[in-house]
């Protein structure tokens, strides 16, 4: 089985490649360039990519697929369809399921379910602590043997610095990265939106930026002390970017990721009390957006992700402070970043955007994907950077509908997602 992707702009940041050309996929692998020139090569299928970008399959290292336990919100099957529809060939699932991924049997259960039902590659993370309770270490080594790609208590944050330190030291033995949802519980309290002008006006409990920044600072110091890498998830505040920049300049292995909603929306969006604008960490100010984008532009931020967090409509359609945190992301994230970062703000170019979604996350987690090197898995995303389209939540492949971007007109999107040489989705 072979497919020729013809006459596209091939952007492969891992190999510093950006040129117009053809890419041949043979038996689920990227073929050597020489095979294309060989007239003997049998081509089963040719896809014209004129005017399109051929990129390594995109990787989203931060999604919630809700299985096991919350399949009314999302399943591995529906979540993976949403991933494919957004241009993603690999996703990394967070462990805050029910039960949580804090032991090898849940890891294996998800892997088997994914093998049977998913149309993209599903990678599993394990909890740092048992039950994501922040009190004692989960069986990290056993989960490593079962195949987890990283550790995180996402949705929660280990408050005990001593426990976090030991988790980092222990994880290093297996080469596992610890990914942290940065939130100080005392400072944040019952906060449901950014603490600032709009929380003051609306009378909603504030979630101060300091609640994130102080944990990013802790992580910088713990990463320095232990020599273990820490990845700070979904950074929302400008102050976090400054701390990260300074730590990285000093050679500390601290990385950060940014989600599209944090650069697309401000806390003012909450003035109508619409819970589709409620996520954790919360939307912040225009000044934060500018600093986040600055961090992406200058290389402080190396990874983009969605924090795809589906919730049922009936769960979201409640009083603002009672609604669960989180919004959908997979089907809109590439387009939002393309539209805002590349087209509107011109903060980065397309090649850099692809790097933040491919080789960088692959490098962080030690994955073999994220490249178009010959021999690599034929995971490819074909992107039309100029295609204008309108977000329609009812057309979503997800089980849920909780997006604040319904009706948005965006420029640029994935048009075909190829996983292991086979088209998983096409526009």
């Amino acid at each position, binding site marked *: 089985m072979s497919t020729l992707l013809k006459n596209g702009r091939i952007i492969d940041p891992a190999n510093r490649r950006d040129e117009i050309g053809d890419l041949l996929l043979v038996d689920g692998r990227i073929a050597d360039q020489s095979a294309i020139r060989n007239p003997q090569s049998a081509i089963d299928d040719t896809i014209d990519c004129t005017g399109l970008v051929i990129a390594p399959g995109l990787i989203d290292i931060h999604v919630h697929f809700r299985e096991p336990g919350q399949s009314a919100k999302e399943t591995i099957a529906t979540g993976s369809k949403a991933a494919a529809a957004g241009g993603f060939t690999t996703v990394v699932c967070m462990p805050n399921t029910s039960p949580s991924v804090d032991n090898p049997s849940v890891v294996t259960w998800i892997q088997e379910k994914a093998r049977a039902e998913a149309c993209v590659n599903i990678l599993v993370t394990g909890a740092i602590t048992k039950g994501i309770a922040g009190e004692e270490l989960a069986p990290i080594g056993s989960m490593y043997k079962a195949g987890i790609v990283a550790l995180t208590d996402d949705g929660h944050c280990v408050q005990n610095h001593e426990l976090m330190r030991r988790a980092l030291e222990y994880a290093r033995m297996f080469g596992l990265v610890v990914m942290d949802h940065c939130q100080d519980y005392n400072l944040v309290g019952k906060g449901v939106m950014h603490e*600032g*002008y709009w929380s*003051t*006006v*609306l*009378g*909603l409990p504030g979630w101060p930026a300091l609640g994130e920044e102080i944990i990013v600072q802790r992580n910088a110091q713990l990463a320095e002390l232990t020599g273990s890498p820490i990845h700070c998830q979904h950074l929302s505040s400008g102050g976090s970017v400054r701390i990260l920049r300074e730590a990285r300049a000093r050679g500390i292995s601290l990385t950060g990721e940014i989600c599209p909603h944090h650069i697309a929306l401000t806390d003012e969006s909450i003035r*109508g*009390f619409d819970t589709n604008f409620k996520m954790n960490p919360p939307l912040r100010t225009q000044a934060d957006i500018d600093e986040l984008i600055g961090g992406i532009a200058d290389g402080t931020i190396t990874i983009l992700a969605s924090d795809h967090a589906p919730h049922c409509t*009936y769960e979201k*359609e*409640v*009083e*603002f*402070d*009672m609604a669960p945190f989180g919004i959908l992301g997979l089907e809109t994230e590439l387009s939002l970043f393309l539209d805002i970062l590349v087209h509107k703000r011109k903060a980065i170019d397309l090649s850099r955007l692809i790097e933040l979604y491919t080789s960088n996350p692959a490098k962080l987690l030690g994955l073999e994907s994220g490249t178009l090197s010959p021999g690599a898995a034929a995971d490819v995303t074909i992107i039309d950077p100029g295609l204008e389209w309108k977000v329609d939540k009812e057309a979503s492949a997800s089980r849920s509908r909780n997006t604040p971007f319904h009706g948005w007109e965006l420029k640029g999107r994935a048009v075909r997602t190829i996983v292991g040489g086979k088209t998983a989705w096409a526009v």
Partner: protein
Amino acid sequence: MSVRSPKSSASTTDPQQNSAWKRKDLCAIQDLSPQEITTILDTAAAFKTVGTREIKKVPALRGKTMVNFFVEPSTRTRTSFELAAHRLSADVVNISATTSSLTKGETLKDTARNLEALHADIIVLRHSSAGAAQFLAERLRASVVNGGDGAHEHPTQALLDTFTVREKKGRVEGLHVAIIGDILFSRVARSNIHALTKLGAKVTLVGPSTLVPREFEKLGVQVTHDIESILPNADVVNLLRIQHERQRKEYFPSLGEYTSFFGLTKQRAAKLKPDCLIMHPGPINRGVEIDSDVADSNASVILDQVTNGLAVRMAVLYLCGGTRLG
């Protein structure tokens, strides 16, 4: 009689002015124009005379059903709305649900649908979540009146406060109003800030720096942590109930320390202008935010507020419930 205008009152609003009121709901003072606020106050002035009559009833809302839906406990506001509705000849149903029974099962949206199924015309909602009234208003054909939503707004309280100021002082514009106490967690403060600034008053917020953050200055008010500085030049002081429950312990050390810095003691009251009004939304903590004698002094209009609350709530129910459905 016209449903739009309460009859037989000298200072009644003319129908044209009332027709300026287009809203189905009253969720927040922040949404209102100064003209809309004035319309409510003028209508309330007309209704106030009803309470002094032998027969304290007008038929303005006869045949309408008002539901007093109080998810958070309240006696004063609920009773005031209930009496107001009775005086307008509406039928009244009181529903009090504890927050826990809502979280156990029924969502606010489902509750709303049930109220709709009962053919409620007006729903007065008191709820612990900011935005709850707006949430209901967007989902119901019935009129929704916010009886207090979390720390967001308490529109009728601000309207009755403003009404009282206007009644006693003859105007609101140009007056200096000090709001003293726990501003951060106060829906009364927020609604008062909007009402007073929209009508041209100068507002100063007074209280501990933890409970009166500087962020409030962006609402067009002044912030001070020194009560002495405002005493000689305030035309009105509005004291908010101060609480020292578990969640407030991080904000100030004790009620005693609060009183020593911010309580309206007799000594401080003596520094007020002779004609300064002393207000309080109640229930008052004698000896905490206000000295007992000061609360009972001639400058205190605390009980006038209660009386005026009835007239203001009649006006709000009438404007929201009467015009649209009448």
